[in-house]
């Protein structure tokens, strides 16, 4: 039966003693025995029980783990990495101003720091616990013992490994018996030291296999294909319908989108009143009088809409007082103007400050012209300096805003007759 070539095969009959296993009847007995094994000076040994036993670590003389220190270090590293990451990305590499906050500010960076502390600590605790316990361990000499199966039900075991410097088969067995154990000797097949030859080959094969997907991706990225790409999941990718702007040969003009039948008007789009809908009279001139009545309710509505849509740029008061154009941008109270002007001064972007709404230039315009400005915006020599607001503000509200703009004009340049006698100054102009 002596087979010279089968050193690595599990069928080898040559065995050696790898460990001695002692079984005890109760958790208490196991704990007492562990204390004796500890005092005897053994180093490479372990205890096995169906459930965790309080105080076992002390009985076995296991020293406190350094894992907490590793986790603490990892947590601190996480905090530092998070701060550096945010400092580099937000303050150095790509400074981006968000709601006026500093580029690097501690409060904004704490959530990311917190998460990285947790992430680094958790991964270190998980990996560190495995590494410090030398896990995963797929094979152990005690598995050779049938007796050991009872470790998951009613057996309490101590195993002493043959690698222990104090190990001596006869003495160790005698020692375990002397402290009340039922002893079993675990023999494992002798094989050459080192890794079995199949494992490097298998690993090489797996690594080669692992190259296939990235190579495939690279091939498809670099080459041109005439076929549509593969759709593993169709979902609603293909639908039997015509999309906007697509072709349809069924119609003479080949357009899938159909124009309305000539002479028809969709509901709510009959805009006959040119003065109301375009701000122009029948001859195409701007109307000078508002087509809506100036009621108090409409004035208030105009103020409310103005403060929502106009004030961000023009300011709540309508802009700089007359004659101070080109002054400090902080004199505007429109938030957008303040910030945009400040950035423009730093050479970042361009900004045309808006017209003061109570200026003579604006107030001399007819109501119809103001209506058109709100509707279409302002285009100054090809540059759109003000966007149109027809989508945001309804026609009726535009007229209400114009009423309020007139009121703003009056508030800055009131007719002398409207100013009370007591507060008139000599040079009222």
């Amino acid at each position, binding site marked *: 039966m002596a087979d010279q070539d089968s050193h690595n095969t599990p069928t080898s009959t040559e065995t050696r003693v790898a460990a001695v296993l002692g079984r005890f009847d*109760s*958790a*208490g007995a196991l*704990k007492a025995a562990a204390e004796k094994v500890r005092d005897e000076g053994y180093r490479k040994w372990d205890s096995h029980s169906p459930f965790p*036993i*309080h*105080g076992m*670590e002390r009985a076995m003389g296991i020293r*406190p783990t350094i894992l*907490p220190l590793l986790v*603490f270090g990892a947590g601190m590293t996480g905090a530092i990495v998070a701060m550096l990451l945010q400092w580099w990305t937000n303050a150095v590499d790509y400074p981006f101003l968000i*709601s*006026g*906050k500093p580029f690097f500010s501690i*409060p*904004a960076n*704490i*959530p990311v720091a917190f998460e990285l502390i947790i992430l680094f600590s958790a991964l270190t605790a998980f990996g560190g616990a495995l590494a410090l316990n030398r896990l995963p361990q797929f094979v152990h000499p005690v598995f050779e013992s049938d007796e050991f199966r009872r470790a998951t039900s009613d057996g309490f075991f101590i195993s002493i490994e043959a690698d222990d410097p104090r190990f001596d088969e006869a003495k160790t067995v005698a020692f375990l018996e002397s402290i009340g154990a039922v002893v079993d000797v675990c023999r494992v097949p002798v094989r050459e030291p080192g890794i079995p030859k199949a494992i490097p080959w298998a690993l090489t094969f797996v690594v080669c296999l692992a190259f296939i997907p990235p190579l495939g991706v690279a091939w498809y990225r670099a080459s041109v294909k005439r076929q549509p790409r593969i759709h593993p999941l169709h979902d609603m990718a293909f639908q039997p319908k015509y999309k906007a702007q697509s072709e349809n040969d069924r119609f003479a003009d080949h357009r899938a989108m159909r124009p309305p039948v000539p002479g028809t008007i969709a509901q709510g789009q009959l805009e006959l009143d040119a003065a109301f809908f375009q701000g122009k009279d029948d001859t195409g001139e701007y109307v000078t009088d508002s087509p809506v009545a100036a009621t108090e309710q409409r004035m208030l509505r105009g103020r409310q809409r103005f403060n929502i849509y106009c004030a961000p740029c023009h300011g709540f008061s309508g802009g700089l007082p007359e004659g101070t154009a080109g002054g400090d941008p902080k004199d505007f109270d429109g938030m957008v103007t303040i910030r945009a002007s400040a950035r423009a001064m730093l050479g970042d972007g361009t900004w045309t400050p808006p017209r003061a709404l109570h200026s003579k230039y604006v107030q001399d315009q007819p109501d119809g012209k103001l209506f058109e400005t709100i509707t279409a915006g302002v285009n100054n020599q090809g540059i759109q300096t003000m966007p149109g607001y027809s989508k945001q503000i309804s026609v009726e509200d535009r007229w209400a805003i114009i009423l309020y703009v007139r009121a703003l004009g009056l508030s800055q340049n009131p007719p002398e007759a409207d100013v009370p006698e007591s507060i008139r100054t000599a040079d009222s102009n």
Partner: protein
Amino acid sequence: MQDSPSATPKSEAETLGDMAPGGIKIAAAVGGSALILAILLAFFSEEGLRHFFYSYLVNYAFYLSISLGALSFVALQHATRAGWSVTIRRLNEILASNLPLLAILFIPLAISLFFPASTPYVWANAEVAEHSPLVQHKEVWLNVPFFLVRAAIYLAVWIWMARFFYTRSVRQDATGDPKLTLQMEQFSGPLILVFAITLTFASFDWLMSIEPEWFSSIYGVYYYSGATVGGLAAVILAAIATQRAGHATETITTEHYHDMGKLLFGFVVFWGYIAFSQYMLIWYANIPEETIWYMARQTPAWLVFSLVLLIGHLFVPFLGMISREVKRRKVLLGFWCVWLLLFHWIDMVYLVMPSFASDRFPVGLMDVCLLVGLGGLYVAGVLRAARGVALVPAKDPRLHEALAFENL
């Protein structure tokens, strides 16, 4: 466990015995005289009455939080069917059963509502309400009769809840009936829910409403996090004092101190988490109606104090308590409990006093008098509750788990 001791340790069945009456008298005398001094200060110093009410609120919130923290601990132990904590649960029950005294101590705050110029509850002042549309808008909730009704409901719920656990636990000392434990476990879940709601609204009413225009929905959780820190620290100190006096020396072990220390450490971090959650949202949105609260705490008079709170309530104890050894040594753990109780008090000052005066730092003799005054009455109440009752629930069905309990 097979190897748990079967014999009941002697000191389990011990009560405070002869020590209690003397202690009650001393504590009540010290507290009473400090309170009288505070009342004298209230009437014979400038703005004294207003300072008295604000400072009273600080200290009331402080001592209330200790009992509420202990009460939530008891409910939590039953909800989780915890075995480890049985030996220190009775101390929590005793602290929680001090709530009737706190109900009586609420009366000065109720009286303050009828001194519009001095009350911390400025919404009760018609002149303030007149100039604030927001306060007028909140009148449906913030009005004197409804405020008092709600306060009565909160206090009644807590007192009932504390008695529910206390009486059953004490009854078990005599009968050893395990059904009592099952009953407490069944009720603890719903009671935690009721507790959370009442605590949240009580902190809104009693603390947040002193700035009636300001609001923060996390405020209740903030107060709870501080209350748990205060409650755990007080219970650990009570356990140390009990053992110094020679009681429960065998039943409360290093392992229990270690676990209480871990919980305390956890809630210190939780407090920081909640405090920052409130701060960051307000800082980021930067809306004046919200930032005004922090502005009052960042004036030259208060900025240093606010930073001291942040560092002393979070960073210092975090580093100081993180080690396992600290939590297993009574002297060190006791030091951190005193430290955290102090900073929990500072936290209460931080919540209330900037509303009293944001342009100066007003904390002084008045606040110390009230801290000692209410503290004396509180300790007397605790000793009275502890009189004649065993300090460890000796017949709890899970006692052996607590005795055999060991940390890894």
